């Protein structure tokens, strides 16, 4: 990254090669169609190249790219019909996710299917979906997830718990839940 920051194109190409797939799939999770996700992918790496000189090296390259991708995805549109899971009690989320119900383990079975899992994720508010992707799919630490989301580590942990419950609820109820 230090070489890329100094304008070394082959070094930057290596970063694109290493992180391109992650950035694309994160973008795909945020904007949910391939064409727009590709626009986000390109905008992200173009912005990264242009601002590489200002990269201070005090954080992971991945989380720096994911933060740029998050902003790029926002510029490409964000749903207006989102209801934050923060507005729901943990008890309500737990009940919707199937606490105490005989079908609760169906959540895991449905989660085996990538399409069902993606459909359920798509019902979540952007920041809930982003937190789940960053931490659980892209293996970002709590610290790095907090930097991308622009919040505290404690807020990330709370958001992850609510997002997992909301995801479970959406899977249990066939992907038509929580954010609608």
């Amino acid at each position, binding site marked *: 990254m230090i070489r890329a920051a100094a304008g070394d194109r082959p070094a930057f190409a290596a970063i694109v090669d290493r992180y391109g797939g992650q950035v694309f799939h994160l973008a795909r999770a945020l904007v949910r169609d391939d064409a727009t996700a590709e626009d986000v992918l390109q905008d992200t790496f173009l912005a990264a190249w242009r601002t590489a000189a200002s990269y201070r090296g005090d954080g992971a390259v991945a989380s720096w790219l994911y933060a740029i991708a998050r902003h790029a995805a926002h510029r490409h549109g964000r749903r207006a019909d989102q209801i934050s899971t923060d507005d729901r009690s943990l008890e309500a989320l*737990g009940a919707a996710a199937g*606490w105490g119900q005989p079908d609760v383990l169906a959540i*895991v079975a449905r989660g085996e299917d990538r399409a069902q899992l993606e459909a359920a994720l798509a019902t979540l508010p952007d920041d809930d979906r982003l937190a789940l992707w960053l931490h659980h799919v*892209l293996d970002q630490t709590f610290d790095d997830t907090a930097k991308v989301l622009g919040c505290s580590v404690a807020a990330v942990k709370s958001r992850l718990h609510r997002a997992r419950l909301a995801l*479970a609820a959406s899977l249990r109820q066939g992907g038509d839940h929580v954010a609608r």
Partner: protein
Amino acid sequence: MSLDDRVAGVSCREVLAQLGDYQDGALAADARATLEAHVGACANCAAFGGAYGGLVARLRERLAPRPLDADRAARLAARLAKGD
């Protein structure tokens, strides 16, 4: 059956609130032991905790990013070369 039911000295409501920290390994040892004692004796929380942990595992397993396909990577390289 209610979230207010108490098993092993802690309510299901408290377990639900702490489940995220438990999953993340962020509970102190005594709180972890208390939660595990509850889950070991509460069928509802055991089933729910299993589903919750299983779902997290499915996220990692099923959504692992794949590398960019060759066409998409070529378009990205062309845009970067063009620089606009």
